[in-house]
């Protein structure tokens, strides 16, 4: 462990903060994905495109209204509505069919949405300006407050989801449907609409992360691809359908990548997540973390 001494403490701390910030955004993307998988057994390959379209909706609404916060909320609602429409038109007719058909359907949606964005917005990346530009000094770095705010907002949205699932009437409907879809329906719960609602919630969360993440990377039609790949890794490592596990896995993997970036180029550090994925699949295929109650 000689090499560890070569890493200055300040760099380690900066990477810890970076890892947690990225981890929280990733957790926000992944929790929508894992929610949709957990309740519907649908692996949503279009999730990244909902994230991307959310960011574009943010760009457009921000240009029209001038308010980042209006853009954030409106993009969430708009993409949630899009998710509901996609679910009713594409996924609901496939209910009860082979899971492969839903994979192909969502993959098809993802291609359509991606090329729609390319056609509509062109190949040049758009920028969402940060809602405020304040910075604080972290050792030798000027660290933007906005990054910390993203982490907090992501945590707040996830916490709101958790409270909704735990105490809300519709939250109880969602959990009942996850546990026994047939009995939920026999208790009068309109299961087809619960499924649509969950897809809409997951889509809205993807859109929120798109808007929050936009100021950091720039918005383009392919931005969803990388993120959703990472989100899939997180969902598998955290245990498919396990919300708490996904959040822990998102932070865990982001921290590992951030630390790895101290030794290798950041683009190579991505390898770490794949290694974690492969090890998880080999040794703990149900997920690294203990299941949390649904």
């Amino acid at each position: 462990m000689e090499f560890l001494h070569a890493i200055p403490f300040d760099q380690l701390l900066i990477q810890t903060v970076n890892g947690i910030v990225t981890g929280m955004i990733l957790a926000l993307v992944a929790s929508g994905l894992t929610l949709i998988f957990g309740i519907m057994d649908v692996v949503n390959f279009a999730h990244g495109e909902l994230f991307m379209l959310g960011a574009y909706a943010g760009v457009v609404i921000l240009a029209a209204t001038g308010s980042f916060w209006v853009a954030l909320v409106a993009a969430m609602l708009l993409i949630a509505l899009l998710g509901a429409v996609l679910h009713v038109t594409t996924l609901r007719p496939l209910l009860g069919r082979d899971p492969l058909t839903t994979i192909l359907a969502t993959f098809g949606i993802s291609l359509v949405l991606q090329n729609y964005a390319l056609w509509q917005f062109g190949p040049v990346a758009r920028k969402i300006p940060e809602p405020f530009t304040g910075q604080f000094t972290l050792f030798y770095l000027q660290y933007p407050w906005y990054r910390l705010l993203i982490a907090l907002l992501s945590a707040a949205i996830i916490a709101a989801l958790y409270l909704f699932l735990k105490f809300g009437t519709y939250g109880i409907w969602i959990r009942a449907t996850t546990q026994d879809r047939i009995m939920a329906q026999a208790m009068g719960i309109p299961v087809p609409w619960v499924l649509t609602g969950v897809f809409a919630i997951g889509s809205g969360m993807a859109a929120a992360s798109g808007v929050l993440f936009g100021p950091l990377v720039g918005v383009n039609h392919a931005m969803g691809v990388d993120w959703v790949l990472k989100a899939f890794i997180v969902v598998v490592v955290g245990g498919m359908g396990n919300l708490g596990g996904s959040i822990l896995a998102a932070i865990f993997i982001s921290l590992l990548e951030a630390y790895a970036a101290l030794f290798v180029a950041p683009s190579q550090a991505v390898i770490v997540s794949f290694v974690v994925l492969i090890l998880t699949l080999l040794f703990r295929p149900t997920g690294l973390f203990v299941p949390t109650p649904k």
Partner: protein
Amino acid sequence: MSQNGATAGPLLKVEDIHSFYGKSHILHGVSLEVGHGEVVGLLGRNGVGKSTTLKAIAGLVRPSQGRILFDGRAVAGLASHRLARLGIAYVPEERRIFPLLTVGENLRTGLDRHGVSKTERQVLLDKAYAYFPVLAERRNQPGGTLSGGEQQMLAIARAMMLEPKIVLLDEPTEGLMPRMVSQIREIIDALRREGVAVLLVEQNVPLTLEAGQRIYIIEKGMVRHHAPSAELRADPAPIHEYMGV
């Protein structure tokens, strides 16, 4: 749980329903009727289609042929959540408690619906907890941690939250201790006193003959015999014939 809006005819009328699981023909034309507030027993050996009949009424199995009339309205083919809202409550043989929801949350799945005021909800909950005090004690415990008998009570209490006009009970006493069996018996009587009809599928013949007013005996997916329970209590020959007991 009153008989308001009751039509003149029977509450539930099943006419010649057929049903298939894959290629095997399970129901070969079952017909039966349940009146408002009536307790009707459905007897028969294992695998003759009793449970499938209940599932067809609850909308969980779609009959390939035949009619189901509820309150005079054709309901075959309606989604089961619509049937639940119309007043058909289903208590499956496997109980199917939501294992990770608490007892209270299990009850809420039936309570949280349109048009139930806060007071009405409390009245319904209090009533369920009065019938089943053990559920009140365990209201914050996950349903999956209850014993078999407690799960059965929760399944019945959960069905009652729907304020049903009829409860479809599938083998409620299966595997229960005698004390629990008599409690189930009391609940069936209580439902009847409140004007709730019960369609009871059972292997327990004495209980069914006591609790039910009329009995249908099913064999090979068809109703073979139909009589008031008093008649079968006096002369149990048809029961011996079709059930071999």
